[in-house]
């Protein structure tokens, strides 16, 4: 394998690993902040115990998100130096702004929150976790605006042999980026809801700390229900935006090879055959279905992959399967939440629901990872859509360097990930401290 392939693998590994921890940070920080606010307002000790129990899981999860985030900043320079040089004027400033306005806030006040239980007043302590929650979500915004530039570059001009900033507000106001942000955030909030419901279900099944975990479950359920519906509905609009901005990505998501001028069908069962530029199996077609989904019009034309030369198409199988996985899991999530909502006052009498919710903890994780595969693999062969190819972006480094770092980073992540998941299991199973 060459430097390019190894660097791509390393980027995929480091980013996907990072994003195991980030969504829970984004959502759970808000849930913990709500719990602590309820405690400060009512003085109800159960809410204090909830804050401490879920807060501990939050912190254990948080640390891996933070340390693996350093990798992401470093690797643009280490592995993608030509990219960094070409778009640093825009992309680099977004990362620097993220650190200055959000990451400092998040890290500083998390330190105050963790160590401040006996030092700060209850109100000040609650304010700290709100600042952490706000800063985490603000940090995600800047990162996604940076990613949005890669998906839909705006506000730049090519000058001095590189992309230079021409209009800062066009970059920041990138509608594609904001769509992504809503999509990522609602997915992350839904994930946090599922996490809280799943862990609560474990204890409710054992009928321990029933009041504590019923309250937790219901709070998680509100998040899960609202945001799993939002992520699905908004995801549909997001895909329509993809149709306009990245038609090749959409064609790969649907494995659509031929262009249909008067309405593209939607097949429920498809097996792509990339080599022969067709689908081996296409079953259960809905005439005009894809046109309707993409354009709200059964007759609208949709471009097929053959409109692009083979070297300008994204990998079809991976994009297609990831998209199907995301949509499938994303459909399951609101259904589970609706079931939970209907049984919300009879949770302990519905062990089937509790078991389902316990085993559903990985569902949003898989959906979110699959979603990022669609976003990033589906953009290939471009690193910046239409502007720079991934192959032209890689650093002039030696294969052995990347081989070493890929192996070492994978081993390190595997070890630390295992230790982190062990701790999460340990404290999730242990339950809250005695009242």
């Amino acid at each position, binding site marked *: 394998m060459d430097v390019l392939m190894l660097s791509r693998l390393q980027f995929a590994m480091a980013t996907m690993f990072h994003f195991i921890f980030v969504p829970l940070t984004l959502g759970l920080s808000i849930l913990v902040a709500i719990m602590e606010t309820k405690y400060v307002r009512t003085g109800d000790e159960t809410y204090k115990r909830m804050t401490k129990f879920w807060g501990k899981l939050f912190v254990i999860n948080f640390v891996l998100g933070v*340390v693996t985030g350093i990798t992401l900043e*470093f690797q643009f320079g*280490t592995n993608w130096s030509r990219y960094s040089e070409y778009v640093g004027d825009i992309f680099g400033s977004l990362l620097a702004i993220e650190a200055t306005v959000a990451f400092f806030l998040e890290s500083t006040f998390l330190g105050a929150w963790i160590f401040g239980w006996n030092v700060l007043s209850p109100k000040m302590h609650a304010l700290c976790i709100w600042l952490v929650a706000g800063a985490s979500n603000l940090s995600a915004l800047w990162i996604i605006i940076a990613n949005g530039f890669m998906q839909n570059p705006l506000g730049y001009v090519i*000058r001095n042999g590189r992309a230079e*900033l021409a209009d800062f507000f066009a970059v920041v106001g990138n509608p594609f980026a904001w769509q992504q942000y809503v999509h990522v955030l609602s997915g992350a909030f839904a994930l946090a809801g599922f996490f809280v419901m799943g862990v609560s279900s474990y204890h409710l099944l054992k009928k321990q700390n029933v009041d504590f975990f019923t309250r937790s479950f219901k709070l998680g359920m509100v998040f899960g229900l609202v945001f799993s519906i939002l992520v699905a509905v908004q995801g549909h609009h997001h895909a329509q935006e993809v149709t306009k901005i990245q038609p090749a990505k959409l064609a790969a998501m649907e494995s659509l090879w031929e262009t249909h001028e008067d309405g593209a069908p939607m097949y429920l069962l498809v097996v792509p055959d990339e080599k022969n530029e067709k689908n081996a199996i296409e079953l259960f077609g809905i005439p005009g279905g894809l046109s309707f989904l993409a354009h709200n019009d059964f007759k609208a034309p949709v471009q097929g992959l053959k409109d692009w030369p083979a070297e300008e198409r994204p990998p079809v199988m991976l994009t297609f399967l990831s998209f199907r996985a995301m949509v499938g899991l994303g459909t399951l999530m609101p259904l589970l939440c609706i079931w939970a909502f209907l049984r919300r006052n009879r949770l302990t009498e519905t062990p089937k629901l509790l078991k389902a919710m316990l085993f559903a903890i990985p569902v949003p994780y898989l959906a979110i990872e699959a979603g990022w595969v669609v976003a990033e693999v589906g953009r290939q062969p471009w690193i910046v859509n239409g502007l720079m190819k991934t192959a032209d972006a890689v650093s002039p480094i030696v294969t052995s360097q990347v081989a070493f*770092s890929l192996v070492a980073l994978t081993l390190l992540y595997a070890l630390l990930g295992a230790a982190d998941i062990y701790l999460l299991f340990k404290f999730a199973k242990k339950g809250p401290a005695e009242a």
Partner: protein
Amino acid sequence: MLETIWFLLWGVLWAIYFILDGYDLGIGTLLPFLGKSDTDRRIMLNSMGPFWDGNEVWLITAGGVTFAAFPKAYAVMFSGLYTPLMLLLFALIIRGVSLEFRHQVDSPAWRRVWDWGATIGSFLPALLLGVAFANIFMGLPLDEKGVFQGNLLTLLNPYGLAGGVLFVLLFAMHGALWLTIKSEGDLQRRAANLARTLWPVLVVLIGAFVVLTVVYTNLLSNYLTNPLLLVLLVAPVLALLLLRRQIGKEDWWFAWGLSAAMITGLTLFGVVGLYPALLPSSINPDYSITIANAASSTLTLSIMLGVALVFVPIVAAYQFWLYRTFSHKVTEKELGHDGAY
């Protein structure tokens, strides 16, 4: 003009990172030497507990600013120094995780693992940053395309290694002084004794490093053109000399401040010596990465300056609040609190 302002800010950001995370890295390095018991080690880790994460963000910001203000310098520095930066990354990851995981399980074996993680994860960044910056001061073998023509061994030359040792000991001193502020009793006495022992070593080392700098680098040329700039070297030397007195008086906050002034002075001495290059080329001065060929557009530099002028003071204010709120000593009673390491 904007480029020069950003060049100086770049140096200042690195200096702030070295002062703040420097003591964390120092304490981590000293963990096996000063931490005789589990309680000692816990006090050492808790002395940086609320702060280390916020301190580390200054590194992310220094990196981010390199990327934003001088994209080409960022590209060349990070790809050229690929392996040392990866090692730095691994070490910082291990350090952060060790601090957070160590106290989660009450088992001596578990804690021993993360103690080593904290030590190696602190020692290695200090060493690598020293080696990297010394090599940058000396010049990297950059060809006309800015491609690094060397490997890890290229960096391990006498001057680079001297830089590494200097950083490790500067941070160890800085960490020992922080510990004297945050601890009491026997541990504080041992930290103070270590600072006393380290002081003459640092005097010799800094003297030797300055001599080596004259021999190996061109940093001095800026100072020969503008002798007034030598004030930058007077400051750290004065701080170093005063430091011994304050250690003797056991005036720990003042001593730590002097150590911070010394680190800032040495960093800025190097950075100002580099100007206008960010990464001088040792192959041919024309191949150097300078503020002229690496800077971002005027628009980006202006917007970034606006952001920095508004937000850096805000960050400084709330980080100051954090330090003031948690300035008390870490006592054994405190170790029983929720959230303590």
